[in-house]
C-alpha cells in the first residue's frame, strides 16, 4: 500500500539481517512466526466449523503481514499495519456488517438460515408418539459424546448418540432389564448423573434419532432413567417447501419475502429465517405507530441534549477560565485542581451518584432535602425535570473539560495582542469580543464539534441517570422521555434479552451515524472558513 519517496536508510535495519548483536532480527523472526502460527491456527479452526469468512479473512491478514514486514520497502505499512488490522476487523468490518444487518429482518425468530429454521421447528414440535412404549434407559459416554442405551421389547440392546442413530449393539451386557455395559462406551451411573447438573442438562436436551429416517422420530428422556420415542407433529416437504401439521392438518408454506412459514389463514410458525428486507427497517422507524411518535420526540431531544450540553458547559467553562486567568489571583493552581474534580471522576460513577442524590423517590435525595428544604421535587420521574436533571448533571460533568481547554488556549494567545488592544483604547469587553473569543474559537471549535458528537451518543449519562425514563405512555416500546437515540437503539436491539430486532436497531445506528457525520462535516467546513477569514 505504500511506495515511499523517502530515500532508503543509510544502514540496513537491525531487523533485516543478523549482524553483531542484532537481536532485532531474532525478535522479528519470533514475532512473525507467532503471527503466522496464530493466523494458520485461526484459519484451520474456521475450516473445521465451516466459517469461510473467518478463514479467508485470517489468511489474507497473515499474507499481507508477511508481505509488509519481509519487504524492504513499505516502511509506512510496517508502522500502520498492527493498528490497521484491529481497525479493519473491529471497526470497518462491523460498520459494513451493521449496514448488512440493517437490510435484513435479523432478530428474535429470524436468527439463521431456512434450513436451520426447519430443523429448529421440527425439534420444537416434537411430542411423545401416542401409545409409544417407554424403555429402561442407561446413559453412556464415548469420549465427549453422550448417548443413550436402551433395551427394546425383544430384549435387544440399542445404542446411539445425537450424531449416530440407534443401532443394535453387539456384545452389550444387561442385568435383565437395564444395560450394564456396551463395548466402546462408558456407562454413566445414576449417582454421577445426579451429581452433575451440566450433564443432566445435556441429557435432557439429547435426541437420539431412531433411524436414519427423520420421520421415525427420536429417543428422548425426561428424567434420565426411561426413554420414549418422540416424533415431530410437523412434516417438512422440501420439494413443495411446506410444513404440514399432522395433528390439525394445517399447511404452512414458506414465504421468502418475510422469512416465515405462513398458513392460508395468515397464522405463522414461531421460528423463521433471515431474509433481506431492503430498506424496510429504515421506514419502520417513521411509520410503525409504536416507534414513529417516540422516534421524532427522541430525535428532537437528542439534538437538544447534545447542543445544550455543549453550549452550557462551554459557556460556563469559558466564563470560569476568563475570570480566574488573572495573574493577581493567588492559589490559581489549587483552584484549578479543585475546579476539574468532576472531570476527573469517572462519568459512570458520577451518573450513578447523581441518581442517588436526586433519587427517584422524592422523599429522599440529598439535593431535595439540603438545597430545596425538603420539597418533593420529582427530579427523575417528571418528564421535564428529568431532562433538566440530565442537562444539569452533564453540565457538572463537562464544564471542567472546557475550563481546562479554554485555560490552555488562552495561555497560548500572545500577550502583545492584549497590550495592543489596551493601547488602542479597547474596553475589556471589546477586547474579549473582538480578539480573544475569535482566536479561542479557532482552537476550540474542533473540540466543540467532537464534544457534540460525543454527547449525541452519550449513552452512560442517560442510561445510568434515568434509564431513559419516565416511560412514554402512548407506546408499548420500552422507551421514555429522556431516551436519546443511542439508548433507544440499545433498548430495541434486545442484546440484553427480551425480544430482539437487530435489523431495526442497526438501521437506526446508521441513521445516527449519518446525522452525526453530516453535522460534523458541516461544522468543520464552517471552521475552515472562519480560519480563512482570519
Amino acid at each position, binding site marked *: *500500500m*505504500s511506495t515511499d519517496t*523517502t530515500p532508503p536508510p*543509510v*544502514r*540496513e*535495519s537491525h531487523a533485516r539481517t543478523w549482524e553483531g548483536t542484532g537481536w532485532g532480527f531474532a525478535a522479528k523472526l519470533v514475532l512473525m512466526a507467532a503471527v503466522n502460527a496464530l493466523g494458520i491456527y485461526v484459519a484451520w479452526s474456521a475450516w473445521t*466449523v465451516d466459517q469461510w469468512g*473467518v478463514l479467508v479473512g485470517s489468511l489474507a491478514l497473515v499474507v499481507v503481514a508477511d508481505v509488509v514486514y519481509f519487504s524492504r520497502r513499505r516502511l509506512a*505499512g*510496517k*508502522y500502520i499495519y*498492527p*493498528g490497521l488490522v484491529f*481497525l479493519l476487523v*473491529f*471497526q470497518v468490518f*462491523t460498520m459494513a*456488517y*451493521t449496514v448488512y*444487518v440493517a437490510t435484513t429482518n435479523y432478530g428474535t425468530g429470524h436468527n439463521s438460515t431456512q434450513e436451520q429454521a426447519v430443523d429448529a421447528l421440527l425439534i420444537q414440535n416434537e411430542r411423545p408418539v401416542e401409545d409409544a412404549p417407554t424403555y429402561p434407559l442407561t446413559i453412556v459416554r464415548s469420549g465427549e459424546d453422550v448417548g443413550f442405551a436402551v433395551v427394546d421389547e425383544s430384549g435387544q440392546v440399542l445404542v446411539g448418540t445425537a450424531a449416530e442413530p440407534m443401532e443394535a449393539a453387539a456384545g452389550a451386557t444387561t442385568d435383565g432389564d437395564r444395560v450394564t455395559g456396551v463395548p466402546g462406551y462408558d456407562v454413566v451411573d445414576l449417582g454421577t448423573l445426579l451429581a452433575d447438573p451440566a450433564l443432566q442438562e445435556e441429557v435432557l436436551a439429547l435426541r437420539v434419532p431412531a433411524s436414519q429416517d427423520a420421520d421415525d422420530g427420536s429417543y428422548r428422556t425426561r428424567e434420565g432413567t426411561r426413554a420414549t420415542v418422540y416424533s415431530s407433529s410437523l412434516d417438512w416437504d422440501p420439494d413443495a417447501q411446506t410444513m404440514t401439521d399432522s395433528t390439525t392438518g394445517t399447511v404452512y408454506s414458506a414465504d421468502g419475502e418475510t422469512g416465515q412459514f405462513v398458513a392460508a389463514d395468515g397464522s405463522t410458525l414461531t421460528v423463521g429465517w433471515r431474509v433481506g428486507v431492503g430498506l424496510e427497517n429504515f421506514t419502520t422507524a417513521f411509520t410503525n405507530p409504536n416507534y414513529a411518535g417516540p422516534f421524532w420526540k427522541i430525535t428532537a431531544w437528542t439534538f437538544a441534549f447534545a447542543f445544550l450540553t455543549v453550549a452550557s458547559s462551554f459557556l460556563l467553562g469559558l466564563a470560569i477560565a476568563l*475570570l*480566574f486567568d488573572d495573574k*493577581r*489571583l493567588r492559589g490559581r493552581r489549587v*483552584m484549578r485542581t479543585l*475546579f*476539574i*474534580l*468532576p*472531570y*476527573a*471522576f*469517572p*462519568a*459512570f*460513577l458520577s451518573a*450513578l451518584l447523581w*441518581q*442517588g*442524590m436526586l433519587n427517584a423517590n422524592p422523599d*429522599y435525595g*440529598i439535593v431535595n*432535602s439540603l438545597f430545596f428544604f425538603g420539597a418533593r421535587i420529582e427530579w427523575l420521574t417528571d418528564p421535564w425535570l428529568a431532562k433538566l436533571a440530565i442537562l444539569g448533571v452533564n453540565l*457538572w460533568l463537562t464544564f471542567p473539560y472546557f475550563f*481546562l*481547554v479554554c*485555560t*490552555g488556549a488562552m495561555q*497560548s494567545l500572545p500577550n502583545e495582542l492584549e497590550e495592543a488592544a489596551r493601547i488602542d483604547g479597547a474596553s475589556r469587553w471589546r477586547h474579549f469580543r473582538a480578539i480573544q473569543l475569535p482566536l479561542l474559537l479557532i*482552537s476550540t471549535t*474542533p*473540540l466543540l464539534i467532537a464534544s457534540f458528537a460525543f454527547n449525541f451518543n452519550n*449513552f*452512560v449519562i442517560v442510561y445510568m441517570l434515568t434509564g431513559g425514563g419516565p416511560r412514554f405512555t402512548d407506546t408499548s416500546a420500552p422507551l421514555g422521555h429522556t431516551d436519546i437515540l443511542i439508548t433507544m437503539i*440499545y433498548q430495541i436491539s434486545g*442484546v440484553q434479552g427480551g425480544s430482539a430486532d*437487530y435489523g431495526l436497531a*442497526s438501521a437506526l445506528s446508521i441513521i445516527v451515524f449519518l446525522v452525526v457525520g453530516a453535522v*460534523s462535516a458541516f461544522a468543520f467546513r464552517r471552521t475552515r472558513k472562519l480560519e480563512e477569514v482570519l
Partner: protein
Amino acid sequence: MTATTDSPVVTPDASRRGARRRRWWLEVGWKYPLAAVVVFYAAFPLAYVLSASLSPSGTLTGSTQLFREISAQNFSALGDTRFWQWAGNSLVIALSVVVGAVLMGAAAAYAFSRFRFTGRRVSLTSLLVVQMFPQMLAFIAIFLLLLTLGEVVPALGLNSKLALICVYLGGALGSNTFLMYGFFNTVPRELDEAAKIDGATHAQTYWTIILRLVTPILATVALLTFVATFGDFILARVVLTSEQNWTLAVGMYGWVSDQLNANWGLFAAGAVIAALPILALFLFLQKYIVGGLTSGSVKG
C-alpha cells in the same frame, strides 16, 4: 490574603490605602468568594460520596450531615462482594488497551507524519470518517461478530476479556491517531534527518528519538484511553455476560439499579476506591492534558 497589590509602596495615607483596597476588591477580591462557590459546586457531590462511604448506616438517602459518623465498615464489606474481581478485570482490560492503543496509535501517527506514501491523504481522510462512527453504534454487529468468532476461536468469543480488549483496540487508531499526528508534526524533522545522517535506522529513530520527544502526548492519550475504557458500559455489557468477567462499570450499575437503597453504602465505598486512582492521575497529569488537547487537536 492580605490586601497588598503588586506595587509594594508603603504609604501611610489611610484614604489612599482604603481606595486601593476598594479597587482590589472590585477587580480581584470578589473572585475569591466566587471561587469558593465554584469549588463547592464542583466538589460537593464528591465530598458527599466520601461521607456516604464512611457512614455505617449505609444509605445515601437519609442523613444530611456530612461526616457525622465514620467507620470503615462499607470498605471491609466490599470484600464479601465481587468488587475486587471486577476492579481487577477493569484494570487488566484498561491497562492492556492503553498499552496497545498507545503503541499502535503512535506508530501510525509516526508513519503519517514522516513518510510520504501513496494513499496517505486518502487514509487520513478515511480515518477521520471512520472515527465519526463510534464503535458503540456498532454494538450489534460486534455482538454478532463475536458470536461467529467464538465458534472458531472460543477465546475470542462472547464473554471473553481478550475479545473485549480486541474490540477496544479496534477503535484505537481512529480516536488517537489525529491527536498524536498533530503533535508528531510539531517535532522538527531536522532531528530525524540528523539521526539518519548519523546512521540510525528508521526503527532506531522512532524508538529512541521520536518517542522520547512526544512523551506528553503519549501520556495524554494513555490517560484518555484509560478513562474511556474504564468507564465504558455498553460494549462491556454486551460482550461480558458472566458476572465474574464484569468490569466495574457493569457490576456497579447492577448494584444501584437492582436494589435501589440497599447497596448505596457499598456503592459509595466502591466509587471512592474506583475513582481515587484516576482522580490522582488526572490531577498529577493535568498540565499534559491541557497541552495535549489543544496542541494536538487538528484544526480544520
